[in-house]
């Protein structure tokens, strides 16, 4: 009895000692989180404080101008939005298909290994190099010119690795017994992928797409390299409007600018007032990212609600 209580006493001191680590680590974890959160808030706060004065409806509806008070981001946000649409339309199908191939079809061989290394390697290639590639291939080789299409394709290539990796992770999370269930029903491989793998991994894929898009929307260097403009005071043609009438896809080949370029240009201008514009544009850009993230979280929640293994 006494032996046991002495022993218990000992155990308790040990536990107390170890629990200090628990506490310490909790605090450390919170602190680490806070560093991230505070950095973001500082960044965001700075932009809000500096740029708040310029945020008005006109700011969204005006074209660039040499007068800071009249300059706006109309061509920039429209351009960014359209480029993102192209990027998503290309990166999502190609990235998801590649992820599905690697996870569901690829045999374990050298080619697969090469593709895998290759995908992670691409994630580390500086974005400007993508710009150089795209300039040679999309702009000149394919003759797409300095257009929304070229920019969208470039950014699509840039975020492809992220989409592929996210797709693979999401697919891996699907339990094997769901797959077996489908095959046991007589489904072919493609039917299994189409009816099960893709729908059930969509939430994870979406996360990857959004992370990728958030990166793409803030990219400057590759877009400048392929020839995005800085001053452009007109919008891409709406389908079936204008003189002469634009076709359904004419906007794809239109010249354009994007938010980060506009911002980049304003930050490098001598006048202080332009720096306010840059802050305001940065604020809008982060807001656009935030909206995308918000959508993703909401969609992910909706999609996951139905799926629990």
């Amino acid at each position, binding site marked *: 009895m006494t032996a046991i209580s002495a022993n218990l006493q000992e155990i308790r001191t040990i536990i107390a000692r170890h629990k200090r680590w628990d506490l310490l680590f909790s605090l450390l974890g919170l602190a680490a989180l806070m560093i991230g959160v505070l950095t973001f808030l500082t960044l965001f706060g700075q932009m809000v404080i500096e740029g708040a004065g310029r945020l008005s409806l006109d700011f969204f509806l005006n074209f660039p101008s*040499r007068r800071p008070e009249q300059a706006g981001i109309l061509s920039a946000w429209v351009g960014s939005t359209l480029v993102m649409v192209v990027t998503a339309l290309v990166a999502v199908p190609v990235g998801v298909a590649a992820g599905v191939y690697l996870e569901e079809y690829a045999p374990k061989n050298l080619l697969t290994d090469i593709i895998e290394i290759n995908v992670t390697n691409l994630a580390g290639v500086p974005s400007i190099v993508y710009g150089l590639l795209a300039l040679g291939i999309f702009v000149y080789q394919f003759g797409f010119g300095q257009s929304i299409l070229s920019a969208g394709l470039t950014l699509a290539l840039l975020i492809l690795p992220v989409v592929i990796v996210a797709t693979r992770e999401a697919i891996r999370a699907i339990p094997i017994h769901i797959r077996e269930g489908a095959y046991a029903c007589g489904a072919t491989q493609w039917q299994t992928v189409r009816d099960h793998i893709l729908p059930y991994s969509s939430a994870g894929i979406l996360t990857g797409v959004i992370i990728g898009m958030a990166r793409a929307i803030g990219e400057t260097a590759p877009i400048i390299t392929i020839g995005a*403009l*800085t*001053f452009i*005071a007109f919008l891409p043609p709406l389908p079936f409007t*204008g003189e002469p009438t634009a076709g359904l896809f004419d906007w794809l080949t239109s010249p354009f600018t994007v938010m980060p370029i506009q911002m980049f240009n304003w930050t490098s201008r*001598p006048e202080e007032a332009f720096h306010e514009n840059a802050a305001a544009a940065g604020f809008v850009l982060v807001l656009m990212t935030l909206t995308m993230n918000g959508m993703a979280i909401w969609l992910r929640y909706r999609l996951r609600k139905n799926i629990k293994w």
Partner: protein
Amino acid sequence: QSAVVKVDGSSTVYPITEAVAEDFQKAKKNAVKVTVGISGTGGGFKKFCRGETDISDASRPILKKEMDACKEAGIAYYELPIAYDALTVIVNPQNTFASTLSVADLKKIWEPAAQGKITNWNQVNPSFPDMPLKLYGAGSDSGTFDYFTEAIVGKAKSSRGDYTASEDDNVLVQGVARDKGGLGYFGFAYYVENQKKLKAVAIDGGKGGVLPSPQAVENGTYSPLSRPIFIYVNAKSLDKPEVKEFVDFYLKNAPKLVKEVKYVPLPSKVYEANTERLTKKKVGTVFGGEEAVGMKIEELVHREAKL
């Protein structure tokens, strides 16, 4: 598709072209569209000599390589100087001793031999205090760099390498504004906008120190650091009415708009000479593919151009 005038090139020239484009579009009620890009003088010429743009903004004259490229593609062009950029040497406002620096002083600071050796103000001039010298300047890929080295060191691209280089002049502004021993150089407009944070140095080109100012540039006393900046117009494009109109508008409104965006307009004679060039179809460059420092711009425009 409605008519589009495509301009691309130097970031230094961009504010002027932007201002012109903005007013031109307004004047034409948007019947003509103008786009302006910034891919640097070099990137601009690359597109220009491929025939992709109508006009190229340039902060330096066209170089040999680029002349060859244009020639190969059969592209003839008009070279039109449109403004002065006065390179300004600036120091931290707390620096009270270096109000005037001679070209020789600057050369001592910036020449390649200075690398790692001239690191203190008192090495520049024994009367200066003992204070570390920190340098800020244009990136070695820029026209500003080429011009500054040519004018100060005497040889283009000849410079020490241990200084903070940036394409973005605001970065240089930040550097010198924060660094008591800092010295840097960049375009006049950045100095004008940041006068509170910076102090300009008077340049002694042999006839006493001269502070940069529009007057000093126009009357030629701010030498050798005033350099002309240009637009190059594709001769074939000029046959298109919208390009012709744009260029005419550009030359006509340049003096007003150049001043508005804080550059220094050229003497009005030069704009007239430009117009004459266009009417007489005098294509080509007068620089022969080289940087031209200290030459009087008026003389230059009357030189016979070569292609």
